[in-house]
């Protein structure tokens, strides 16, 4: 019987929604028994929260003062220490999981399946390649452990009606001190999180300046939406890096995505393919964004956006 261990992502005593999505992915493996491991300096609250996820049988707490920051080189040996008896180890394909899971895979002597978007069987998965221009079906060897990251935008969170057992384990592995956390410069948390917001409004290079990007924030606030951006807007310094949507930014799946002054380069589109409805506002009727938009409006954003904001306020 498949036994899946999920490495939880969390911060400030709260689970990141990516963990519930990994559980949903693992639940697609027939007959899987699902456990979650929490590495923390104080895992109690996170463990209690994760124990309510439907489908999870057991939550394993690993408390260690060296886990106060998520350092892959420190966490990987601890994950490996609890993998005995598991057929699968999953983590989210967020920057947390992308950093940690390949390190775990290497220590276990296997390649990783990156970005699972669909489970076909216990050792068969679909994943995107070439910036989402192709989808490949992969098969992992049946005689070795499967280490994978889950493309979180492909899954809806597992519901919270479960009741898992919780136990704590101690691990005496010698943990490295060669990597030291100095500082986290986190963006403001005033708006809905880009990765979980039901509506996202994004702006591109066309905004032209940090000041003009205010138009995007105002429209987003009127809609209760999260805010994203194209790489060009981030590179130009209009907005911080954590707002980038796309192949090398965040992959998101909101119910409604509004792309404003964004041309629709393939690297951007791969980040929004799973959105429910895509709206494009662009002055160039030939822009590639219109090939994927459900609703398109050709025109100047500097007149359209304030009008739209008024209409929805």
């Amino acid at each position: 019987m498949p036994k899946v261990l999920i490495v939880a992502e969390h911060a400030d005593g709260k689970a990141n929604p990516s963990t519930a999505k990994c559980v949903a992915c693992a639940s697609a493996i027939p007959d899987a028994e699902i456990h979650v491991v929490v590495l923390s300096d104080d895992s109690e609250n996170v463990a209690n929260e994760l124990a309510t996820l439907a489908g999870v049988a057991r939550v394993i707490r690993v408390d260690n003062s060296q886990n106060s920051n998520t350092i892959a080189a420190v966490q990987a040996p601890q994950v490996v220490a609890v993998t005995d008896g598991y057929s699968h180890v999953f983590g989210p394909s967020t920057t947390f999981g992308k950093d940690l899971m390949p390190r775990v895979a290497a220590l276990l002597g296997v390649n990783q399946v990156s970005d699972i978007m669909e489970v076909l069987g216990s050792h068969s998965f679909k994943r995107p390649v070439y910036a989402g221009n192709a989808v490949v079906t992969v098969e992992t060897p049946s005689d070795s452990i499967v280490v994978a990251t889950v493309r979180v935008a492909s899954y809806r969170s597992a519901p919270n009606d479960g009741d898992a057992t919780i136990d704590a384990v101690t691990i005496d592995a010698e943990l490295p001190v060669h990597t030291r956390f100095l500082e986290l410069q986190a963006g403001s948390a005033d708006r809905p999180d880009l990765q979980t917001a039901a509506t996202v409004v994004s702006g591109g290079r066309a905004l032209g300046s940090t000041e003009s990007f205010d138009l995007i924030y105002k429209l987003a606030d009127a809609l209760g939406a999260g805010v994203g951006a194209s790489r060009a807007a981030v590179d130009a310094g209009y907005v911080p890096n954590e707002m980038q949507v796309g192949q090398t930014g965040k992959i998101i799946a909101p119910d409604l995505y509004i792309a404003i002054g964004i041309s629709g380069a393939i690297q951007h589109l791969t980040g929004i393919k799973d959105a429910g409805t895509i709206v494009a506002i662009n002055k160039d009727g030939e822009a590639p964004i219109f090939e994927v938009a459900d609703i398109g409006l050709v025109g100047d954003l500097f007149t359209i956006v304030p009008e739209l904001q008024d209409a929805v306020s």
Partner: protein
Amino acid sequence: MDKILVGLKRVVDYNVRVRVRSDGSGVETDGVKMSINPFDEIALEEALRIKERGDASEVIVVSIGGNDSQQQLRTGLAMGADRAILVDSGETRDPLTYARVFLALIERENPGLVILGKQAIDDDNSQTGQMLAALWDRPQATFASKLEVNGDKATVTREVDVGLEIVEIDLPAVVTVDLRMNEPRYVKLPDIMKAKKKPLDTIDIAELNIEQAPAIKEVNFEPPSDREKGVLVDDVAGLVAALKDKGLL
């Protein structure tokens, strides 16, 4: 520091509209423009800048793949790398093998820093750097947008989901770079001529005695599911009506 090792992977150029072969065996690469993986180019630029600041004495570019990767290594030499190593890996192309190859080269070259791209834009795996750091038992600083070398330490700014994380690492270490680290220089014609004289060694992967990694089989490629073409509206009123229609307002 003495040496910096940089990986250069040959990939389909990022401007190419990739098409899946009709038999599902892969994507079309015949007659398609191939380039250095864009992240790797940024990795090389960073290594060259470290050397130009006097913090390293030699930059070695490495490619693992077929003979055709010589082209990307020559471009790397023209950008300013001192020498190149091609590891001919035949049909074997997986991140764990790449990591094991880099480890074998590290044992020969003893670099102070290995700089790689954070992912390759063909398989989008994002694994090799982290795997190498694990096998080498050294620090990894992934998704880096800033790298400052100070003696036997480095301070690295990482682009993470919530913002920027700054870490200090002991050297030697592996750094994988994100897009905003720098803008790679353009190669000038005289540099291309000079690069022809720089050393490019080819090593057969068999010489490195790499343990074979359990392979993940790629059984079928398919195009992504298409989104249906939508409608154009004439004005804001039309947009609002269309959104209301879908229950989104």
